[in-house]
């Protein structure tokens, strides 16, 4: 399929990537990509026809340059009669092309919802200004296992994403996996995704949601069902924090907004940090997860992501270092 598209447009070489609709890694994205390829074919033919007709018209303009046909009503009338016979043909061709595309669109639309009946797993994703709260329905306790800004999907299984918003409208978009769906206050939208190809992908908020709309990304990992189960079990477990200065400072300075299960921190305003160090990125995809970036983010959040709700907290260098060290142990 991809090869077919590349034949249409050599430019598309190298347009894959971790956030690309042209490099599908799931059933839904693949259905849409096929539809896109078909549209490219039809559009290409149409454009060639139009450009050809226009060129022909220009060639005639060049050939008969300088002449004036205004007075020759008889000739115009004859030509018009011939053109009028072509008109239904043009209309028919357009309608035929549209019928093909509408039908294809219809089937693609159905394909997106083909798995509606049997999701293997339910995941609640809630958009906040400017991060994602992600909760897995625990198959054991039937409670929620909360994490943030990182979505894990079991390969080959259909996952139902329950999309909601806490403040303003956001839009959930992981182009390699599926098309986008808005997260709207007052509504619950369901998005079924069936990821097929292992690996890391990237998603990003697609509906303008305020100052830091640009830094509202999420990491998506497609992994084997076994690896996924192991990961979910690890996420379900409370943190095993090392008691120390960092934990104590966190409890005072950070726990009003952040939760660390197992360490007594229970704030809900910001992302759950129980296993923060196991994640791939920080601050909703803004920074990669490293010990240095953790400390930088704690020290200067407003410089890295101006306008974020993460405040700058006046800590002594020693305290900041201790907190970063502590967080880096939360795997």
């Amino acid at each position, binding site marked *: 399929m991809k090869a077919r598209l590349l034949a249409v447009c050599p430019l598309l070489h190298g347009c894959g*990537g971790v956030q690309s609709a042209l490099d599908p890694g799931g059933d839904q994205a693949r259905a849409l990509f096929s539809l896109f390829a078909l549209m490219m074919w039809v559009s290409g033919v149409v454009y060639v026809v139009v450009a050809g007709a226009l060129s022909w018209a220009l060639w005639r303009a060049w050939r008969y340059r300088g002449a004036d046909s205004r007075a020759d009503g008889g000739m115009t009338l004859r030509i018009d009669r011939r053109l009028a016979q072509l008109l239904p043909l043009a209309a028919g061709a357009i309608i035929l092309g549209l019928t093909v595309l509408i039908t294809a669109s219809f089937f693609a639309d159905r*394909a997106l919802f083909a798995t509606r009946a049997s999701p293997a797993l339910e995941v609640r994703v809630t958009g906040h200004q400017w991060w994602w709260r992600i909760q897995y329905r625990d198959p054991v306790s039937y409670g929620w296992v909360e994490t943030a800004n990182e979505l894990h999907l079991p390969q080959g299984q259909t996952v139902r994403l329950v999309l909601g918003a806490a403040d303003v409208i956001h839009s959930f978009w992981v182009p390699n996996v599926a098309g986008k769906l808005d997260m709207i206050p007052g509504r619950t939208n369901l998005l079924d995704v069936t990821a097929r190809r292992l690996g890391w992908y990237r998603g990003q908020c697609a509906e*303008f949601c305020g100052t830091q709309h640009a830094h509202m990304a999420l990491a998506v990992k497609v992994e084997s069902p076994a690896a996924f189960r192991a990961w979910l079990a690890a996420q379900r477990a409370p943190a095993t924090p090392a008691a120390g200065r960092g934990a104590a400072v966190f409890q005072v300075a950070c726990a009003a907004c952040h939760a660390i299960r197992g360490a007594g921190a229970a704030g809900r305003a910001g992302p759950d940090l129980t296993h923060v160090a196991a994640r791939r990125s920080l601050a909703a995809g803004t920074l990669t997860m490293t010990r240095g970036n953790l400390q930088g983010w704690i020290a200067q959040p407003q410089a890295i992501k101006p306008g974020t709700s993460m405040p700058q907290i006046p800590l002594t260098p020693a305290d900041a270092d201790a907190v970063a060290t502590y967080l880096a142990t939360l795997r």
Partner: protein
Amino acid sequence: MTPDLDRRDRLALAWRDPPGWWGFLTTVDHKRIAARYIVTAVLLLFLAGLLALDMRWQLSWAENTRMGPQLYNESFSLHGSTMLFLVSVPAMEAMALWLVPLMLGQRNMAFPRLGAFSYWLYLGGVLTLWVAHALDVTPDLGWFEYPPLSGPTYAPGHRADIWAQMITFTEVAALCASVNVVATILKMRPPGMTLARMPVFLWAMLVASLMTILSMPAIMLVTSMLIADRLVSTHFFAPAAHGDVLLFQHLFWFFGHPEVYIIFIPATGFVSSIVETFARRRLFGHHVLVLAILAIGCLAFGLWVHHMFAVGLPRLGNDFYTAASMAIAVPAGLQIFCWIATIATGRTWLATPMLWVLGFVATFVLGGLSGVMTASAALDLQLTDSYFVVAHFHYVLVGGAMFPLFGAFCYWYPKATGRLMSERWGRVAFALIVGGFNLGFAPMHLLGLMGMPRRVYTYPAGMGWDALNQVATLGSAIAVAGGLVFVANALLSYSRGAPAGANPWGAPTLEWAGDSPSPPWNLAYTPVVDSLTPLWDSPVLRVMDGVALERREVVVTSVVDAAPLYRQKSASPSIWPFVAALAVTAMFLGSIFTPWAIAAGALPIAAALTGWFWPQRERATTGPLRVRS
């Protein structure tokens, strides 16, 4: 015979404006008003274009620091709001105000003072947005401000209110202009110009104006609801109090989609006029073109939902809206067919206006095809709110409406100024703008497919978006340079261009029958029309006499047959439209701060309107309040 001097002197006396500033403020000459509209819109086009260039610069590198998020968000909001509300629609209205009476051989619009009022109110909207910007109170939520982001909680202060009231200004102005255009086209066609003999341009303006009348109340309603939510704590868009945030989107796009065609349909009118003149033959498929315009006008109201495919509406509607949206391709495709057929079978003269038509076809068809893609409810989920859509609507609006507008500008420039623009520099501007535009916006299709969302002020390194963004920036810069050449050409030609004479292109329609530039009264006689191309079909202009020369008067005809009905007094210059616009401005601006401004502001408005419509007649000699001597 040519009109004698005495006749022209008498007309000049009756139709003159007061001199100086007073004349500037009181004029009701449709050509002066339209020129103001055009100058204002071009100035704003330039400013909003610079904003675009600045944003392109910011996006040329990952993690670029030219702009922070606040400045970027303000920039794209100001760019979009200006281009959509203050440039595109007003520019089309201006062309209608300027051309419709000329093309009808009439002396003025149906409601001359309403035309003046439209402009002053539009200017109020312009100043509201841009003075606020100068004071650093810039709306920062895009050209559609969805609640709850624009609601009282998440958009504190008055930035969102300024956006909403700017819209009220421009929409009231547009509605007044539209009523004016509709009444003029329906009731003031010259004797003999039946509906069947009406040029495509007039049909386009008629349909666009009717669409304005039926769609713009939606956005006035919805922005008023937004202001009410913000100012008096109503709950229209508060889901937790039985409100619904999607109500805003439905009403916004019920306006927003027709708006696109309100911009595009006049452009089809320009293209039809230009093609006919430069192909030097009668337009092929006049009826098809008219029916296509009507079909687009009707369809446009049935597909606003395609802006909302990603909100998760009931899927039953998806197929319907997909089909309805794609169906637009049928009339649009037939229009393209008719124009190309006319060009091919005529003896086409490739002067600058015609070049713009070629650029329009080549570019707009691409926009139409990407439009078919976004019309698919399924595929749109990958395309909407990404750079693909940014590319799509720029192709449609710039390629589909601005290129014809530039062509129209070149085409009617000699009529407006009496001078020709330089063809050489016209070609340079054309090449730079069309080339730069395509270079700038074609890569954005790919960027969108590669996952770049719109309205992001920056993006991380390693996304593979840098090179395409740099190409886009380069293209935009070239297009802006072309725009400067275009404007310089227009400015220089104003004094240095070759004299144009009455009909430099050998065009067939009535606006070219008289002097260029047109005197304030336009044509000295009332023309009589018996074909679609009156100036081609007869060496002399057949006219009727009898419309007053000593006072302002126009002839009113019947709707279908254009049979003369009566002679209507035409309004003379007046300060009241200006005063009324000032009063309305005061009320609109006041209502940003307090609801009581509506009550308090109603009185000056009522006073101004009373002054405006107070008929000047002698005092009563009968009845209880008669003058007793």
